[in-house]
Each structure stands twice: as structure tokens, then as C-alpha cells.
């Protein structure tokens, strides 16, 4: 029970830390001191206190979007194994619920953006929708393959890849990790797919969709995208952190892994340029192809003798 409560606390607070660490890493590589690691949390508190500015062209959809986005992020968190435990709601095929709850949040953020009537936000929504159509099938293919391997259709299968797949285990792990990492970059709107730091509306994807959101709405959406990043990182943790560790060591390992992932994201953002918009698909297709490789390996393992 205690560990489940700890997990809830992690879901609520670690996303801010991850965002803060990414920014700190970028500042480090840029030769700056940077803002405090807790700055995203301070910003959250500041935004919560502000007054709303709401465009007259918007309808109720725009108003409920932030609430749906944060609610679905928190709800999705219940289905994902976090630090040293199974998911809080650990049911077979939970990953399908997980994916579609996030899909719901995506759907509302798309129509919420289009609701503003701004040509920028429509453009951002169309880009986001495009990328999602590639990411989603790849995600299903990846997880379904891994789960088919162990015959266990809960997220617990992720931690049992090695024991279920013998010689292929390491390969499956590596390909699955890279595919998931690309998914984090895409869904978290990070470089090289998107640039969270830019002020240029024409180049934005995720940021441009929330241009009209202010105050608590903006705070909730930012928080939700942090949570989403944490949840996807947790899938990586489920694969990497071995089972059967003492609980507190597993929790520490989990937190350390979140730290490492944030630093890696920050470093990538510092050292590479963003991909040209028309080539982003090719980058995301890398995820699809890696998911296919995992599927092929699983097929080989199950039927190939």
C-alpha cells in the first residue's frame, strides 16, 4: 500500500522535476547556470494563480480540453507500472486502455486547438494528428508483440522479456527501448521532432496548439504533458530495472533512471538540430520499423524453434 501511495506522489511531482532537469541540462551544455530545477513547479503555481484570458471565438470545447487532458493523463497513470510495483490497476490488455485514454486526451487537444479558429493552431493540430497516426500503430505492435511472447497481457510482461525470450531477449530489449525512446521524444514534443523552446509559431507543433491557453489551463496542459513523458519513461524503466530488487532500491533505481532519461533528452536537445518538418515522418518511422523488428523477433522466437 505504501508503495502505491509513493507512486501516486511520483506521478504528481516527478514530471516537474524531469522538465526542470531537461532545462538544467540544456543550460549546462549552453554554458549557463539556468533556472532552478524546480522552476517548472514554480511556474505551475504561478500560472494557477493567474486570471484566464479566453478568446471570444472559442466554445465550451476549448474550456473543457485542459481538464480532460489532465484527467486522462492521471487516469492513464493508473495503468502503468511505476516505481517497484505493478500498475495500480493491473488488468490484462491494460495497455489498450492506456493508449486510448491518451488518445482521448490527444483528440481533445486537437479539437480544442481547432476551436480557437486560429490558422496557427489548425496547422499545429494537423501536424500533431499526422505524427500520432504513425506512433500509435507502432506502439500497439511493440507492446502486443512483447506481451504475446510471455502470454501475459499486462504491463508486467515488459519486465519479463529476458526470461521469456532466451537468446533474443537482449535484442528485443534494445529495439523496444529505442522505439519507446523515440516515442517519448515525439509525444513529449522534444527536439528533434519539436522545439519546446521556440517562439516561432510557424515551426511549432505542440506549443502552437496551446497558444490560446492561459493561467490554470496552461498549467494543467504543461503538467499533463510532463506526466505523459513520465509514463512513457516508466515503460522503459519496466524493461530496464530488474525484478526482485529490494523495494527501496527499486524505487531509487527508478528515480535514477528518470534522471538519466531527462539528461539524455536535454543532451540531445543541445547537440542536435531539429529535423526538417517534412522529414520528421522518417524519424518516427524508425520507431515503426523497430517495432516491426521486435515483432519479427517474437515471431521467430515463438514459431521458429
Amino acid at each position, binding site marked *: 500500500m505504501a508503495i502505491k501511495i509513493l507512486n501516486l506522489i511520483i506521478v504528481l511531482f516527478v514530471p516537474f522535476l524531469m522538465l526542470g532537469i531537461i532545462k538544467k541540462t540544456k543550460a549546462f551544455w549552453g554554458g549557463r547556470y539556468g533556472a532552478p530545477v524546480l522552476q517548472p513547479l514554480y511556474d505551475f503555481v504561478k500560472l494557477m494563480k493567474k486570471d484566464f484570458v479566453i478568446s471570444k471565438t472559442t466554445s465550451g470545447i476549448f474550456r473543457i480540453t485542459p481538464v480532460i487532458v489532465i484527467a486522462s493523463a492521471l487516469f492513464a497513470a493508473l495503468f502503468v507500472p511505476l516505481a517497484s510495483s505493478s500498475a495500480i490497476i493491473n488488468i490484462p490488455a491494460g495497455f489498450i486502455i492506456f493508449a486510448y485514454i491518451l488518445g482521448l486526451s490527444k483528440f481533445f487537444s486537437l479539437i480544442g486547438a481547432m476551436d480557437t479558429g486560429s490558422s496557427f493552431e489548425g496547422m499545429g493540430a494537423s501536424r500533431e494528428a499526422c505524427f500520432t497516426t504513425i506512433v500509435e500503430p507502432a506502439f500497439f505492435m511493440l507492446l502486443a508483440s512483447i506481451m504475446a511472447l510471455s502470454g501475459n497481457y499486462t504491463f508486467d510482461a515488459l519486465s519479463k522479456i529476458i526470461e521469456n525470450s532466451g537468446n533474443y531477449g537482449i535484442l528485443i530489449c534494445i529495439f523496444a527501448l529505442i522505439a519507446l525512446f523515440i516515442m517519448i521524444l515525439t509525444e513529449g514534443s522534444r527536439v*528533434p521532432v519539436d522545439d519546446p523552446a521556440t517562439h*516561432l509559431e510557424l515551426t511549432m507543433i505542440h506549443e502552437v496548439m496551446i497558444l490560446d491557453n492561459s493561467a490554470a489551463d496552461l498549467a494543467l496542459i504543461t503538467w499533463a504533458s510532463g506526466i505523459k513523458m513520465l509514463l512513457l519513461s516508466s515503460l522503459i524503466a519496466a524493461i530496464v530495472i530488474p525484478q526482485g530488487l529490494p523495494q527501496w532500491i527499486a524505487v531509487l533505481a527508478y528515480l535514477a533512471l528518470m534522471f538519466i532519461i531527462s539528461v539524455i533528452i536535454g543532451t540531445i536537445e543541445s547537440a542536435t538540430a*531539429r529535423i526538417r518538418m517534412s522529414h520528421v515522418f522518417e524519424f518516427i518511422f524508425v520507431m515503426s520499423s523497430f517495432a516491426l523488428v521486435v515483432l519479427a523477433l517474437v515471431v521467430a522466437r515463438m514459431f521458429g524453434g
Partner: protein
Amino acid sequence: MNWIKTKNNTKINLNEIPSLDIDTLRDEIIKLNKRPVGFFGKEWGEGSTRLFVILADDENSDLYVSSCIFDADEKGYESLTQTIPSFHVFEREFYEQFGIKPLNHPWLKPLRSHKKEYKFFEMEGEEVHQVAVGPIHAGVIEPGHFRFMCNGETVYHLEIMLGYQNRGVEKLMVEYPTNQLAESICGDSVIAHNLAYSKVMECLKDVKVSKRAQLIRTMALEMERAAIHIGDLGAIAGDIAYLMGASVFGATRTLVINTMLEFSGSRFGRGLINVGGVNFDIDNEKIERATKTLTKVEKDVDRMVKTMLKNSSVMSRLEKTGTVSTEKALEIGLVGMAARACGVNLDSRFDFADECFKSLALPRKLFKGKGDVNSRFKLRYQETMESLSIAKRILDMLKNGYKEEVLNTEQNALSANSMAISIVEGWRGEVVHIALTDMNANLSRYKIKDPSFNNWYGLALAVRNNGVSDFPLCNKSFNLSYCGNDL
């Protein structure tokens, strides 16, 4: 004689300028077929207007001047743009300022004025959409409206509507001709505009400037070029989300402008140049410090650019983005850095060199540009390195000799009934200042041409068939001035 031939920084008597009728002038312009640097009107008594045309022969460093008088009832003429497209902005400006219509002009839209409605081109189709950006932008940028006609992510056409910064500088210059005003024409070309203004005034006043002052001016111009180029290299890196480049170039640019701060008390060189010379001399202690700083800047820029050019993710963004072909560049009359990046060999530092620049005997490096963002990036790098080395060389010359007064305070009144033209190569391209005086030796017309005036249309051509998300990158690679265009 249908033309009078003159040189850069030379005074001519207004009476010597031929006055033709418009049809002859039109034929003459087409026959001569040189690059326009001035095409402006002036009230000429009783409601008539005199049109002055100045063409540049870059190969021989000659300027051709002619004119034509429109009577009060003459309200139109056959436009030159039909034959020579590079006249298109000049004719639009002339029409806007004096109401004399260039007939059959293909693009007779307002240039600066917002009194008339600006009619954008429209495209129709199921997947076609328009994106309107500005006039207020994110970040600290000047106002300007951009209208994209897109099909999905591809830009078919961009129209740029400016004029939000129109302050009536040309009129102000006639009323209050001061260095301070000249410096404020365009905030990132302080030295270039102030230098052009000072040279025009020195021409009209017959003021001699000491060699030391001329050297300091040339050095300041090169430092401005280096500083802005480095800043823009950083901005290009920032636009493609290459953080390291943005940070390093940002820091090195500061070193250059802080050196300027030591020289003149302003990071952008405000207050440095004055009619008759410069306001501040540079002592040897400052020279040594500056030389050290500039050497460090040279090293840092060199290293960072080389790192960037080796990074494949950077190169894939820069190469083949925002291409303007050489033919297009010549046709629409691009000038300066943007033209050189397209392979047009145009540099008024060499084409219209003043005696100080000539005495440095610098080799002219040619740049084989392809007209894309990558070419502009590399050209800016090459020019930065050149400018830094010129600045260092001049600092060395100042240390060892030329111990003279830097400001000539003995100044005559303006010459009456004259015209002077001064062309200075700012970092963006040629800055042209033209001053006319009346019979009473007062300024009667002041004409300014910033390189942005020619080049905005180049940006519109550059983004065609590019992704709409590449527009900011193309824009930064040109980095044109809004207020320089709007005046």
C-alpha cells in the same frame, strides 16, 4: 548628353543633371541597363515633380544620373518594371510618394502606406489555406505582416506587407539633419547609416577627414558587420533548435559589441561617427585589449562554425532551404550579402571603394553561393572572419602611426544647388544616402535606400515551395530590416 557620369562621394551641380522627357529617359534607362540605386522624385515648383534616376555601373565604379520633369497634369508613364523587374519597388515608392502612376506595373501595391487597402493574392482549392502572421510577432521583432498561401505544409506564395514602422525619416532628415537621426534609421546598421550620412554632408560641405578618423570609421563598419553576422549565425542556430550554436555565437557577439562599447560608449557604435571625422580617438591600451578580444572571437567563431558544418542534422536543415537562383537574384535586383550568397558579385566596399578602403589593398574574395540558407550561413562566416581580420589590421595601423586629430571641426556651409551621393556597404548591403540642396544652400531633399528595400522580395521568392515551418529559418538567414524599408 542624356546622363551625367559621377563617382561615389562626389558633389555634382544640379544644373548639370540632364532633364529629359519621360519617354527618352525610359529608353535611355533600358539602353544603359544598369543597376538602379536611386529613383526618386522631388517637388519642382508649381505642382510639378522632378524624377531623379541614378544607375550604378559596378564594374567601373561609375554612377549615372539623369532626370525628368513631370508637369502637374502628367499623372502616368509606361512603367519600367515591365522591362526591368528590379525597378518594381522603386516605382511603387515613387508612385506612393508623388502619385505619378507607372502604367502596366505588374505589382502596384502599397509599399509603406496603409491608406489604401492592400489586396493580397488569393489561391483557391480544397487543400489550400492561408496563414497570416503578424504584424505583431512573438519575441522582440519589428512589426510586419506576412501572408502565406499554402498547400498543406508547402508555401506556394508569400506576400509581405510592411510600412508599420514608417516614421517619415526622409522628411525629418531635411528638417533636422543630425548624426543622431541618421543613427536611428535602422538600429542594426547604426555605423553604416551614420557613415553614409556623414559622407554625404562632408561632400556638400567640402570637409576633409583625417586618415586616422577614416581608419576608425572603416574599422567600426567592419566590427558592425562582424557583430551582426555572428548574432545572425546564432539566430540561425537557434531557429533549427541547435542550442550550442545559439549560446556560443550569442556570447561571442557580446564580446564584439562590448569592444565597440569601449570605443564609443555604445554597444552599437552610436555617437562614434560625426560629420568631419569621429568623436572618439582610440588609445593604445584600448587597442591592445580590443586586439586580444577580437582574436578570441575569431577563434571561437571559427571553431563553432566548423563544428556546425560537420553536424549532419544541422546541414540537413541548411542545405537546399530557401534557394534563390542567380538569375532571379539579378532579375529582382538583390543587393549586398543576400546577392553575394546567390552568386552575384556585388560589394560596394570594392565596387565603390573610398580612398581609405582602397589604401588597405584587400584582395576581393569571391563566394560561389548557391543561394540557399547554407550559402548565406557560410558567406556570413567568411565575411565575419574577413571583417575581424580587417579590424585587427586597422587597430595595428592605429597603434603605430597616423597620430592625427580625429575630428575636423572647421566646417563650411552646405554648397548650394548641389547633389551628393554616398554608398556605404553595411553588413546587409549597400546603404545609399542622397542629399539635394536648394539655391539657399539648405537641404531640400534627402533620399535613403536601405538594402532591405531591395531584398524583401528576395525573401518572398526564397520561401516558395519550401515548408512553412522553414520560413523563420529563411527569414533569419536574410535578417532584413523593417524600419530600414519603412523609413
